C-alpha cells in the first residue's frame, strides 16, 4: 500500500511536470495575448500590487524629504560654495540647454510623430525573479495596448509590451537579457544592434569603421518593425574592439533609470501598422 501510494505520487508529479513543460513550450512561442485564466489572475493581483507600489513610492519620497530637514544647514553652506562654481559654469549650462532642447525635439513624439498616441500607464509590479526585468502596467487591451507596442518615458525608450490582457500588460524592458533593439548613432548615423544582458546592462555591436566616440547619443533605427525611428536610448559609455575585429562592441548607459520607473507611456500607432520582425525568444 505504501509503495503504491509512493509510486502514485511520483507518477502524479511526473505527469504534472510534463504538463508544465508543455505549457512552457506553448507560452514560449510568440503570443500577443494571455489566456482567459491568466487574465483573471492578473486582474486579481494587479490592484493590490499597484496600490502597494504607490504606497511604497510615497513613503520613499517622504523619507527622502525628512532626511533633508536634518541636513539643511550643511546643504545651505554647500550651496553657497556651489554658487561660485555654478557661475563659472553658466556657459556650459547654455550648451547643455541647447543639448536639452535637441533631446526634447528628439523625444517630442506628439509633434514629430503625429501617427503616435501616448497611453499613460503606471507600473503595477515588478517580477520577483532576480534575473528577469519584466514588469506589469495598469493598462491593457481595452485601453488599446497591444503586443510589441514601444514603452517610453519622457527620458527615452523603456522597452516593449510582450503580452496583454484586460486591464494589464507585461512589459519587457530594454535591459532584460531577452531584449534587443536596432540602433542608430545619432551623430555618425552608424547602425547596430543593442541587447540587454543578465546583469541588466546594455551592450551592442556596431561596424568597426564607425567613427563613434564615448558620449555619442544612441537612438532607435526604426529597423525591425517594432520601435519607430528616433526614440532616444542613451549615451555610449564604452567602446571596445573584439579579437576578431569584425565588430565594435559598445556599452550604452540608458537614459531611463530602470530601477526608478513609476510612470510610463505606451506608444500607440494610430494607423495600427502590422507589426513584424523581432521575436522574444
Amino acid at each position, binding site marked *: 500500500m505504501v509503495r503504491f501510494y509512493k509510486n502514485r505520487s511520483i507518477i502524479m508529479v511526473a505527469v504534472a511536470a510534463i504538463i508544465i513543460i508543455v505549457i512552457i513550450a506553448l507560452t514560449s512561442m510568440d503570443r500577443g495575448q494571455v489566456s482567459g485564466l491568466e487574465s483573471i489572475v492578473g486582474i486579481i493581483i494587479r490592484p493590490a500590487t499597484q496600490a502597494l507600489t504607490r504606497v511604497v513610492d510615497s513613503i520613499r519620497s517622504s523619507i527622502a524629504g525628512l532626511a533633508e530637514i536634518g541636513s539643511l544647514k550643511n546643504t545651505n553652506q554647500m550651496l553657497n560654495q556651489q554658487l561660485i562654481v555654478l557661475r563659472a559654469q553658466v556657459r556650459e549650462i547654455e550648451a547643455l540647454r541647447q543639448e536639452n532642447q535637441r533631446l526634447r525635439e528628439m523625444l517630442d513624439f506628439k509633434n514629430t510623430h503625429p501617427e503616435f498616441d501616448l497611453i499613460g500607464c503606471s507600473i503595477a509590479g515588478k517580477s520577483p525573479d532576480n*534575473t528577469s526585468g519584466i514588469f506589469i502596467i495598469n493598462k491593457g487591451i481595452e485601453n488599446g495596448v497591444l503586443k510589441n507596442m514601444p514603452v517610453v518615458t519622457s527620458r527615452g525608450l523603456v522597452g516593449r509590451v510582450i503580452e496583454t490582457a484586460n486591464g494589464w500588460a507585461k512589459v519587457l524592458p530594454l535591459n532584460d537579457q531577452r531584449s534587443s533593439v536596432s540602433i542608430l548613432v545619432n551623430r555618425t548615423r552608424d547602425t547596430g544592434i543593442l541587447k540587454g544582458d*543578465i546583469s541588466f546592462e546594455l551592450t551592442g555591436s556596431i561596424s568597426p569603421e564607425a567613427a563613434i566616440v564615448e558620449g555619442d547619443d544612441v537612438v532607435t533605427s526604426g529597423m525591425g518593425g517594432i520601435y519607430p525611428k528616433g526614440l532616444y536610448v542613451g549615451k555610449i559609455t564604452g567602446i571596445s574592439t573584439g579579437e576578431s575585429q569584425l565588430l565594435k562592441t559598445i556599452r550604452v548607459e540608458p537614459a531611463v533609470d530602470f530601477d526608478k520607473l513609476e510612470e510610463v507611456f505606451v506608444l500607440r500607432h494610430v494607423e495600427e501598422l502590422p507589426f513584424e520582425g523581432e521575436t522574444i525568444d
Partner: protein
Amino acid sequence: MSWWVIALMLLVNFILQSTVFQYIAIMDIMPDFALVIVVAVSILIGNRRGAVVGATAGIIQDIVYGKPVGITALSYMLAGYIVGEYSGRVFKERLVVPVFFTAGATLLKYFISIFFNYVLGVPTGIPVYIRHYIPVELIYNCAVSALLYRALYLVLNRSTTLPRVRAKKRR
C-alpha cells in the same frame, strides 16, 4: 484551515515580493521568499502536498511575470516534492534541515532556469549566474529560511487539521 493559511501566506508574499520587497534588495538581489515558504511547508506536510503548494505558488508568479509561463512552477513543484519526500527522514525541529533544503531548492531553481533559457535560445550568461546570482541568493535564501522557519513551523503545526496528520492516517 491550514490550506487557507498556506494560500494566504503565498498570496501576501507574492504581492509583497513584487512591490515592497523590491526595495530591500541587496546587491540587486532579493531573497526568494516564495521558495523558502514552499520548502518550509513541504518539510511539514510531505511530498504530494508540497508539490501542489510549489506548483501553485510558481504558476501564479509565472502567469503575472513569466515569459514563458511554467518555469518557476516546475522548479517550485519539484523542490516541494523532493523536499517533502525526504522530510520524513529528518528531524523537522532542527534548523539545519530547512536551511539545507532551501540551499538545494535554490540550486535546483537556477539549474532549471538556466536549462530552459538554454533550450529556448535565451543568452544565458552562466558565469554571471555562478559569480553573482546563485551565491548571493543562496546565502539570502538560507538566512531567510533560518529566520522564518521557526515561525512557519509554529503557524502550521498549531492548526489541528494539518494536512500532514491526515496523510499519516491514510498510510
